[in-house]
């Protein structure tokens, strides 16, 4: 699928505008699920996916096939847009705290910690690493490029995230052992 996306991107760079639609169909689910798992905000995830594709069109010639996959390039664009947007939101919320939207956790509260909540509770930097590694089968090098951090940092954040998740889901782990 990824090779296909790369081929389509090359075709798009050469002027085949229809190829963009196929890239969108191929990569939209992965990109949306990454952003959604990171933010748990549907509207924000849709906005970021759409903005990423607008940026991909604008900077289509910046993509160099020899340097990496188009999936990584698109995820890099999306991650930067997402961080900018979240930082801007934080600034607004520090000026006007009552503008803070009600999070879903306030609507649904269960005593048992689900994997969704455990991932949401992870620090932002660890969350991005574990999502890209586990759900998107990305290598350390690709994650390092997307997040703009050294490869060693990816490894250490991944290790810490796994340990944190195990601690968060401790009840479940003990239950499964006793069964």
């Amino acid at each position, binding site marked *: 699928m990824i090779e296909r996306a790369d081929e389509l991107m090359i075709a798009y760079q050469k002027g085949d505008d229809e190829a*963009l*639609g196929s890239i*969108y169909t191929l990569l*939209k*689910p992965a990109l*949306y*699920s990454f952003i*959604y*798992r990171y933010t748990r905000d*549907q*509207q924000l995830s*849709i*906005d970021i*996916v*759409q903005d990423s*594709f*607008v940026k991909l069109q604008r900077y289509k010639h910046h993509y160099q096939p020899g340097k990496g996959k188009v999936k990584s390039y698109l995820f890099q664009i999306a991650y930067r847009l997402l961080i900018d947007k979240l930082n801007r939101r934080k600034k607004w919320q520090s000026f006007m*705290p*009552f*503008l*803070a*939207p*009600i999070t879903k956790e306030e609507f649904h509260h269960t005593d048992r910690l689900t*994997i*969704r909540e*455990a*991932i949401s509770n992870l620090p932002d930097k660890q969350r991005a690493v574990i999502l890209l590694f*586990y*759900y998107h089968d990305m*290598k*350390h090098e690709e994650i390092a490029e997307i997040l703009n951090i050294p490869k060693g940092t990816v490894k250490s954040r*991944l*290790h810490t995230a*796994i340990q944190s*998740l*195990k601690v968060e*889901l401790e009840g*479940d*782990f003990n239950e*499964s052992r006793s069964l």
Partner: protein
Amino acid sequence: MNHDPFKKEHHLRTKLDEYHVEIPDFPMQSRGKRWERFINFLASPAKDPIEPLISTTAGFAVLKLAPIIGMAVISILQLFFFL
């Protein structure tokens, strides 16, 4: 080659696999995007700014007294300026 840190984490893998995301149907670009986002912003639920005041009796009293005190201050200021 990357070492797989999840190799021995069977239970964690099972839990992570439970996390499915439903992909909504939306176009690559939406028309009137800025306007649409503004409407979404206005329509999104937000926290009640006076909720901390209502939840305590002291806060509730402050909320009731604040307009009276405010009006008194404005009246005194007007007396100073116009008399």
